[in-house]
């Protein structure tokens, strides 16, 4: 027990730094997928509400359509900038994920804390040939990692790699 806390002298600046790791970007299809998603949830409502506004000639419907249009435009910008911020890195002992433009975050999950891993795919994701990798720790939903927009084979490879690494510690 003694050696654990006497063992203080670690040169922090010499530790492997996560900033120096090469982060891998998602396939460009992922951005197209996000655009499609945004069009479905925001772009199409703009058209529908505008059509309704033309029919009913209500001023507040125009306001609503305007609001949706603004959100739609903003989401397109956010997606195109956010795409370049979103990347992942694999090291020997951990998996790191970075995302976000206005609100950014970076999370690193060491393999010796991973409970299980999972690959999932929604219907639209299937159209684009993309999959989502989930990495679960015991830390609950706040610390679970969900990595969307991976090539399906790559997601499966990643899952297998991470699961194999994690099982070494179990």
């Amino acid at each position, binding site marked *: *027990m003694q050696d*654990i*806390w006497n*063992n*203080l002298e*670690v040169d*922090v*600046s010499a*530790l*492997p*730094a*996560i*900033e120096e790791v090469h982060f891998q970007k998602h396939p460009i299809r992922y951005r197209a997928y996000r655009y499609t998603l945004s069009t479905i949830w925001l772009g199409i409502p703009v058209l529908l509400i505008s059509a309704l506004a033309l029919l009913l000639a209500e001023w507040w419907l125009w306001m609503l359509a305007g609001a949706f249009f603004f959100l739609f435009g903003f989401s397109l910008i956010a997606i195109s900038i956010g795409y370049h911020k979103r990347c992942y890195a694999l090291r020997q*002992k*951990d998996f790191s994920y970075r995302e*976000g*433009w*206005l*609100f*950014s*975050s*970076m*999370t*690193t*999950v*060491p*393999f*010796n*804390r991973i409970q299980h891993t999972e690959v999932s795919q929604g219907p639209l994701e299937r159209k684009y040939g993309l999959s989502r990798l989930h990495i679960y*720790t*015991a*830390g*609950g939903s*706040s*610390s679970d*990692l969900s990595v969307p927009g991976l090539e399906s084979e790559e997601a499966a490879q990643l899952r297998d790699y991470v699961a194999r690494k994690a099982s070494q510690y179990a």
Partner: protein
Amino acid sequence: MHEWNLREPTRQSVLGVLVYLLRNLRGLISLFVALLLIGAAQPVIWIIIGVALLPGIVIVSIIAYWQYRNFTFHMEEDDLIIHQGIFFKERTVISADRIQSIRIAQNLLQRLLGLVALKVDTAGSGGAELVIPALERPKAVSLKELLYSKKEAALAEGSAEEGSESEGTGTEAQGAPQDGATVRPKAPARILVKLGLGDLLLVGLTENHLRTGFVALAVMFGYVSQYQEFIERYFSDYFDEYANELANAGIAFALGALIVYAVLSVALSLIRTFLRFFNLRAALHSDAVEIETGLLKRESDRIPLRKVQFVEWKTNPLRRLVGFESARLHPSNSVGDVSKQERIEIPALRRAQSGMLAEGLFPAYVPPRQGLKADPAAYVRISCIVSSFLIVPALFVLYSWLQWQAAFILLLYLPIAFLAWMYGRRVRLHFDRSHILLRKGWIFPSRMVLPLHKLQCVSIISNIFLERRSLCHLSMHTAAGSRTVRYMKRDQVSELYNYLIYCIETSDKDWM
């Protein structure tokens, strides 16, 4: 040990019928109150209630009896098997090695009847809890011991290296695997706290009364709003009639209410403290913390030390004056509902006792000196921005009323900024090779101790405004929840981040 044949399906104490009866009746009380409120205006309801009362009670009693009759439990090998249910029969099997913790609890009725409830937490999603609600205490204790010893035997069989638990003293009791029959080994337990009446009174008086008052108000409104419809329907006439007088009395009423509110808050704090912490006893075993507490509802908890992910100590100015601080243990979520409730709070620790608790929980812990500071200016900025959401609208509203004098409300920013500055100045993140010590707060100071090997993962959180000032937050995730330290210097956090990951990855200790 009680002579007790557990091979055969066994029923609980016969008095358990009463426990079930009361539990069923409690479900009916809300219905009853609602009916009464309607009944106040419509006499027909009185007749319906009168007629329904007797058969109702008979039916509830019969149900209670059958609940008692159909509830049996017995042991098969290492499994505890419970049968229950009247219409939908249920058979639950709990194998001893899945048991996380066992608690003995007692509410008022159980106390009057001399019974206790045995609560078994199991590992698994959500941590399903199983309750045997009516047992005589000696039987409950012997069943608890039996289950614990079976669990230990099962674990000892399963893995040989289970002995890696942290033991501060008294390792001699942890020997060879136990046989299923013997009582759980008792390493010398140290009494951590024994709360006398005087201390209890101090704890009650130094509660955060403001919070107690808010909670009480919320509960009251919640309860009243259940019957709001009835109240409005039958009493709105009176309200209308006396509206003028009510308005005149308004200001006097508000003042009076404030005083009543203050007095009630203190009284409630006292009552709550007495109910929760009466005769609180906490003992530190070599592998667990055991806490027994409560006046009407007496509960005893046993939290295995290795389950505790981190500990928070909190205090307030009043409490600091009398030299107390409260500690809250955060066990991993798999313990079940223990982590959701505040039951694992120890409200009154003196310095020495805090030290003892820390030492028992984290044997290698020495308060680390190396530390990072937060940026207090960032705290000032964010609290001013957040409070603007209230102050700016208030300014506009007041302007239409008071004209330029409304600008005085802007003075509110001063105390807000001051408090935020003082808070931010006290945020310190200390760390060494094995532990993190996080200090926060000025008026309500708190500190948290988190062993590094309990960390699940870490994240850096930021946004574009913070990035411009090269600040960020650091989030530390454990199996008992996450804690975030805000507004730290980006380069320092990056370094710490790398260090923490390095520590998790090189740690040979299991997080649980």
